[in-house]
């Protein structure tokens, strides 16, 4: 039983319990890597990363080796909301991660993480004034909240309330056919205080549980308003997450591993992958993407096309061999050719590692130790995102990119 079911069963989240009772709850797979930029872009496009082009929060410029931050302008395939718009349908989309800078959709879009400037997060702009006056918050102040947990809880509550207020206005004033709101506060809480959520003896346990009560009330409000206005609300109400969560046992630095194996060579004192040396055969990008330093792809690339497969095998072997106190760290190493499909696939990684729960993969270029701990306590998991659908959806391999098609089908009759 996952956290959501447990909190529903324990009476912490009675509204969600009622929705679970009425609907069909199951687990599903997130994207790989299992981070929000990739998972949410897969959700909103219904496409594979090889088609939508988002493989992480960062990319490495193959010419300059500078770290780049692919934004929404890179997503050239239509979104679910664009496709609904072609049927003349309007969407309200509030706090959708990875849609910054916002672009015009048929309806209203308010971007979520990593959205920065509200004036570039809102389309159409006529909504900017209202959201500003409501003191709408895109996200909690994560930089501050990470170290100041009193602040974290205050900010979580304030942000959720401002989200509810914004949703209320949008709902009231816009005609819509599809409405979607994303709650990002739970993700922040779990990264910083997962232990407080799951451990009843943790000093912040009550606060952490109380935030779930607030989230449940919000879901309850959304449901009851929807139920009031819809003929058949139970058939059209969906909930899902973009990944699961679990406790971190160790952070695992892939570039530190690649340095140990001799695949990655960075000049001494290097702080960035920009300082990569020609002899480098492979490097990693957050959180779990492995790139062969291929000739013809990267400016200083040194691995020829013939050697590429061999380097990939070496990397997979090194990852599979990795042990922490005798236990394997890596559950699987996936070949991009099996994972990604489409015109953007060639810009993605060569391999993606999937860790056993508890081992949080990272790719800091400077970390010297493979295993370490920080103050972060929660990490994403891949195959236990949840889906609450109005009808049973079968298939062991169901993943978040499949959901858009189901949602679109709702409008066919």
């Amino acid at each position: 039983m996952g956290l959501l079911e447990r909190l529903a069963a324990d009476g912490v989240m009675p509204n969600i319990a009622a929705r679970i009772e009425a609907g069909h709850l199951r687990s599903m797979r997130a994207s790989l890597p299992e981070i929000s930029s990739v998972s949410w872009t897969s959700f909103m496009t219904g496409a594979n990363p090889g088609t939508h082009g988002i493989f992480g929060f960062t990319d490495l410029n193959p010419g300059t080796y500078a770290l780049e931050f692919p934004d929404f302008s890179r997503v050239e395939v239509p979104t679910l909301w664009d496709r609904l718009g072609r049927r003349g349908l309007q969407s309200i989309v509030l706090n959708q991660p990875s849609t910054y800078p916002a672009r015009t959709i048929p309806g209203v879009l308010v971007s979520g993480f990593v959205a920065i400037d509200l004036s570039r997060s809102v389309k159409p702009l006529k909504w900017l004034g209202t959201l500003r006056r409501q003191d709408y918050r895109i996200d909690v102040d994560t930089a501050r909240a990470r170290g100041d947990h009193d602040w974290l809880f205050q900010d979580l509550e304030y942000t959720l309330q401002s989200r509810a207020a914004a949703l209320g206005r949008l709902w009231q004033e816009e005609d819509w056919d599809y409405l979607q709101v994303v709650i990002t506060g739970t993700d922040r809480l779990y990264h910083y205080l997962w232990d407080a959520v799951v451990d009843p003896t943790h000093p912040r346990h009550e606060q952490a549980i109380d935030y779930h009560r607030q989230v449940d009330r919000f879901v309850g409000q959304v449901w009851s308003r929807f139920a009031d206005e819809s003929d058949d609300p139970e058939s059209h109400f969906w909930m899902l997450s973009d990944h699961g969560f679990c406790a971190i046992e160790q952070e695992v630095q892939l570039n530190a591993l690649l340095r140990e194996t001799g695949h990655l060579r960075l000049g001494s004192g290097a702080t960035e992958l920009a300082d990569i040396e020609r002899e480098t055969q492979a490097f990693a990008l957050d959180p779990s993407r492995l790139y062969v330093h291929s000739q013809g792809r990267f400016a200083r690339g040194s691995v020829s096309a013939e050697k590429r497969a061999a380097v990939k095998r070496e990397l997979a072997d090194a990852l599979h061999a990795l042990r922490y106190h005798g236990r394997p760290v890596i559950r699987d190493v996936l070949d991009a050719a099996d994972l990604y499909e489409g015109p953007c696939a060639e810009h993605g990684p060569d391999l993606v590692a999937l860790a056993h729960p508890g081992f949080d993969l990272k790719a800091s270029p400077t970390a010297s130790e493979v295993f370490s701990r920080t103050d972060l306590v929660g990490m994403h998991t891949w195959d236990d995102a949840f889906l609450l659908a109005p009808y049973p959806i079968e298939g062991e391999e169901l993943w978040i990119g499949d959901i858009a098609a189901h949602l679109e089908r709702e409008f066919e009759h």
Partner: protein
Amino acid sequence: MKGFTLWFTGLSGSGKSTLAQAIEPVLLERGVMVEILDGDEVRTNLSKGLGFSKEDRDTNVRRIGFVANLLSRNEVVAITAAISPYKSVRDEIRARTANFVEVYTECSIEKLTERDPKGLYKKALAGEIANFTGVSDPYEAPENAEIVVNTEQESLEESLDKIVRSLELMGLIPPGEDNHTSPEEEVVIRERLQALGYL
């Protein structure tokens, strides 16, 4: 961000309202707050009861100028689109207003008569409308407007571009950005990703 008053002046049909509407989203996009003072809304609220005599027109224009100044000194961009035919009144408002930017929408009577969507020029030229600016009432074109657009020769896009570019050059609005995150934003994105354990 500084507020300013974007004061359109020009004959009826010369493009004041069209340009005011067109520039509003551009300004919002640049992160400034905008109010448009134009047309029926002004005539039915601020200037209710005023007619079209010289005295009433001057009062109307002075009231618009008064409100525009209140807005622009509070960091709002006030856009006005009254014909405002008299130079002395415009200059009086200019003297009182912080960051006054006059935009002259230049267009010949011939062209306006050709546009004439409401048939007003034809009637005025036929002597059927008294006090019609440019025909039976004077229009005093500005001599030192900050921006002049010739709506007879320019397309709407060209005129709009000219105004936006001029405002950028005057430092009144930040330069236009495309749909990409800026280098400054990337610094913030880095911090946020680090706060969640990435990079």
